[in-house]
């Protein structure tokens, strides 16, 4: 049992905590906090109000599954937020939208009257809802303290709580006047509350499941003994399922359009990528919440069976039943959190709408025009502060006099249906270019009329009267025709109102053309992605306007400094001379945007209109301009693409040129080395010839030797010339490879035969190791013979007498590997790759300069590469191993010009 006083103190401490969090968040503004996507995602949980905390339990206990659609609707819609909300956020950011009313009315031509109507609709829908929260606070306060409600408002403790909340909201909610400044303090407090309310419901849930009962299955077993249990947990046939579905649709719409949701999800959004976190986090949050509702509801029914207890307050009554004061207070605080969040956010957003769309445009603009910035800002803030306070008090009054007798559930749903009338205009704004102002307004009014007569009047009329009288009665009888038997009241009215609303919206929009201003904004909204970089350009306006006049107005709201800064940014963006006197359409849009952040789009437009003179443009002209600008945007994109391509092309060209120059140098170098190589044998020939010609008494053996030299060097010369030509052909792919299936062993034997004589002469031991499973491979036999002879010939030259040459043939998955090893001097490390270069002569040779053309290894490498394989040399212990790898399946690879 808790005394009123004690609970009141607890509430004070709690509010102080909120205050502290808000204060710290504002003060520190730490990066981590600001950019935290979870703060954003948690703030969305303002959706869960007293209805969730108390009402849902009541519904779960009395009509079973029907508590779920309020949450299922949102989770159906939320994944699509990746597309929908991202675009809404962009549109709102670009146009400095400060409320739901701004968003919708701007799209349909920025009309003052439309935004006023929307504001009134929101007020009608939300104020009762706020009253609901107050009702919950008051009733739970009295339940916990077990005191009766006082008849006198002034002595009722709950009243004081409400007043405190109103003060908190009006202080922190109006700290920032500009729409682009995010209310970090408030949002942090809301996020904390979302966390706390979830935390407390989890505690309560665990308490009920494991303390009051013996686990989930225990509750279930006992509850299933209720005769209505089965019925409650299944649909009541197709009727039940249909009602369920419509309720899902209602809540799915609400999650997007409810002013408090629009405010937290769109207006207070700092980074688009936070939406991605919200997409999985928020449904998870809702899931945890709703999972505990089931056991609490049925647990309550079990505990209070037979007693006439309001199931909506099971959550308070259960712990109280077990005399657990701590948990009772926890639950109370959890409920308090849900109520406070809702009240604060709704009050703030409604006050913005009220000030921007009703109070300022319809009375105070004259005053503002003549005052300075400080005064104006103060006035705006005061108007909003006052509005918040007034709204909360109004809601309080509403609660006291109207909804004392009605259930939380139905008030909430009616609220949803009313706000849902904005849906056709809202979603039409995003997706349908053709939607017009007239269509939207008429549809909205028609839908509202149906709501009024179908829901509101019966609800509140019947609070006071028992029966319909007179005119009303006849009217209702007439409309009886339209009643759908299998839908209950609220889904039915939702169905009809939305149907008529959407129908009129679409029909009127396609029959009556809108004006050019609407059409302009329609383009801006639907194609936001295209216009986002330069939306000022997309605004079409013609007429006379002077920068100084507009600057004057701006200064009155932004102050001198901010105005100067803004103008500088604008001039920079569009490369405009700061001395320009006339203002163009971009400037008009820019200025309207700046003002809209302060006083809303409607008032901003009116103020700017006041100092400019717009020429009439026909809709046709506007459409043409829009088409043109669209074409320009695509053309621009194409041009950028082309210029990028050109850039790439010229880069490629430059690279090709560079490589050609390199190749040219390489060719020069090659010619040099060729000439050099050719001159050496020629010198030997000439010298020998000269001696033979001049010397008559040359000894015979020397004579013979010289003559032989001439012959061998001529051969060598011939070989060099042939090899050069051959290598050139190989490099240019002019040697046609004759790739066939051949037996590698036979090919090898063919290669070895001519060399056997030399091998024997040097007493070299030649051996083969064959690890092949099969011998048939694809290659050009003639080339392979050439290759083998090259390598073996090489090996022969460098193997010392009585040394060994060993050939190993093996295969891996799709490669044939031939290793030829010879004992002898190893090759210096740095030369291992370069020996395959043409005419390469190592600097640090211990290798004798091989006789032959010096091109043998280069040719070998080319042959191998032409067949898709690879060759490398490595030192292995006592000698050198050449490793040749060939792929099993050879594709004819045209040789590229050699890369060194």
């Amino acid at each position, binding site marked *: 049992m808790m005394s009123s006083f004690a609970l009141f103190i607890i509430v004070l401490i709690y509010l102080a905590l909120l205050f502290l969090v808000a204060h710290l968040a504002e003060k520190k503004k730490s990066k981590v906090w600001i950019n935290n996507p979870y703060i954003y995602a948690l703030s969305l949980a303002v959706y869960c109000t007293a209805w969730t905390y108390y009402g849902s339990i009541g519904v779960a206990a009395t009509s079973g599954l029907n508590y779920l659609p309020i949450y299922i609707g949102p989770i159906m*819609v939320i994944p699509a937020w990746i597309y929908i909300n991202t675009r809404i956020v962009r549109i709102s950011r670009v146009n400095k939208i400060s409320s739901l009313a701004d968003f919708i009315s701007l799209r349909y031509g920025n009309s003052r009257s439309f935004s006023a109507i929307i504001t009134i609709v929101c007020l009608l829908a939300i104020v009762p809802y706020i009253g609901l929260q107050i009702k919950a606070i008051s009733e739970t306060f009295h339940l916990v303290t077990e005191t009766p409600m006082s008849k006198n408002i002034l002595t009722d403790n709950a009243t004081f709580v409400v007043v405190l909340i109103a003060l908190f909201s009006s202080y922190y909610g109006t700290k920032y006047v500009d729409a682009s400044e995010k209310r970090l303090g408030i949002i942090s407090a809301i996020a904390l509350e979302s966390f706390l309310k979830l935390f407390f419901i989890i505690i309560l849930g665990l308490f009920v499941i494991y303390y009051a009962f013996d686990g989930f299955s225990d509750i279930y077993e006992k509850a299933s003994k209720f005769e209505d249990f089965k019925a409650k947990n299944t649909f009541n046939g197709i009727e039940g399922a249909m009602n369920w579905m419509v309720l899902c649709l209602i809540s799915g719409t609400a999650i997007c359009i409810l002013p408090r949701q629009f405010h937290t999800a769109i207006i207070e959004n700092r980074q688009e990528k936070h939406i991605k976190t919200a997409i999985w986090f928020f449904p998870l949050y809702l899931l945890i919440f709703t999972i505990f509702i089931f056991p609490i509801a049925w647990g309550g029914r079990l505990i209070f069976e037979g007693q006439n207890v309001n199931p909506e307050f099971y959550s308070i009554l259960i712990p109280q039943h077990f005399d657990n004061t701590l948990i009772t207070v926890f639950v109370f605080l959890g409920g308090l959190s849900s109520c406070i969040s809702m009240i604060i956010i709704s009050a703030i957003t409604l006050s913005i709408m009220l000030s921007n769309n009703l109070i300022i445009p319809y009375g105070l603009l004259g005053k503002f025009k003549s005052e300075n910035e400080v005064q104006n800002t103060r006035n705006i803030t005061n108007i909003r502060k006052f509005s918040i306070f007034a709204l909360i008090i109004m809601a309080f009054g509403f609660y006291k006099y109207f909804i004392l007798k009605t259930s939380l559930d139905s008030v909430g749903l009616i609220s949803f249906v009313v706000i849902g009338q904005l849906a056709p205009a809202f979603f039409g704004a995003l997706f349908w270019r053709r939607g017009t102002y007239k269509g939207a307004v008429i549809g909205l009014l028609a839908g509202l009329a149906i709501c009024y007569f179908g829901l509101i009047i019966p609800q509140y009329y019947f609070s006071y009267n028992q029966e319909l009288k007179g005119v009303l009665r006849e009217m209702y009888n007439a409309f009886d025709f339209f009643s759908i038997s299998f839908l209950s009241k609220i889904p039915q009215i939702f169905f009809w109102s939305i149907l008529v609303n959407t129908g009129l919206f679409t029909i009127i929009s396609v029959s009556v053309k809108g004006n050019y201003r609407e059409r302009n904004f329609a383009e801006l909204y639907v194609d936001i992605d295209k216009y986002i970089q330069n939306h000022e350009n997309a605004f079409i306006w013609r007429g006379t306007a002077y920068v100084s006049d507009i600057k004057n107005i701006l200064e009155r709201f932004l102050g001198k400094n901010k105005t100067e800064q803004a103008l500088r940014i604008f001039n920079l963006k569009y490369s405009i001379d700061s001395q320009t006197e006339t203002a163009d359409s971009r400037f008009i849009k820019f200025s309207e945007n700046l003002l809209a952040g302060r006083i809303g789009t409607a008032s901003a437009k009116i103020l700017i209109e006041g100092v400019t003179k717009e020429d009439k443009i026909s809709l046709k002209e506007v459409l043409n301009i829009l088409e043109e600008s669209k074409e320009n945007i695509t053309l621009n994109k194409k041009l950028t693409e082309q210029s990028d391509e050109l850039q790439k092309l010229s880069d490629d060209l430059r690279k090709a040129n560079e490589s050609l120059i390199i190749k040219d140098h390489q060719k020069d170098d090659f010619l040099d080395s060729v000439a050099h190589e050719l001159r050496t044998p020629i010198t030997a020939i000439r010298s020998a010839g000269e001696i033979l010609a001049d010397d008559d008494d040359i000894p015979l053996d020397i004579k013979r030797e010289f003559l032989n030299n001439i012959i061998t060097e001529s051969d060598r010369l011939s070989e060099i010339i042939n090899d050069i030509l051959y290598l050139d052909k190989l490099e240019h792919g002019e040697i046609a490879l004759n790739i066939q299936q051949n037996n590698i062993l036979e090919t090898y034997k063919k290669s070895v035969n001519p060399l056997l004589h030399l091998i024997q002469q040097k007493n070299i031991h030649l051996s083969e190791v064959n690890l092949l499973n099969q011998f048939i491979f694809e290659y050009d036999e003639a080339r392979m013979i050439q290759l083998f002879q090259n390598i073996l010939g090489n090996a022969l030259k460098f193997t010392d007498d009585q040394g060994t040459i060993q050939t190993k043939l093996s295969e891996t998955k799709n490669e044939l590997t031939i290793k030829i090893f010879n004992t002898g001097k190893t090759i210096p490390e740095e030369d291992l790759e370069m020996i395959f270069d043409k005419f390469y002569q190592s600097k640090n040779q211990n290798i004798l300069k091989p006789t032959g053309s010096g091109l043998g290894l280069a040719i070998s490498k080319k042959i191998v590469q032409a067949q898709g394989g690879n060759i490398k040399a490595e030192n292995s212990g006592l000698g050198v191993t050449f490793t040749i790898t060939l792929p099993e399946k050879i594709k004819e690879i045209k040789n590229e010009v050699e890369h060194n």
Partner: protein
Amino acid sequence: MKKRHEQKLILLSIGLLVAFSIPISLLFNSEKEVFGYPMMLIYVFAIWMISIIISFVIVKKYDE
């Protein structure tokens, strides 16, 4: 996030719409019990859980 990954999420939305509408939801509308609990309840929460997991995976995997 690339367009086609966005579309996966939109598909998820549509999928949920279908899963909870007639006649699919009615398929699970029986008095039979699964794991000892009402089938409808299990169905709703199972679909719910799965959709959260799918959203999480798509967002994490394709976040640039």
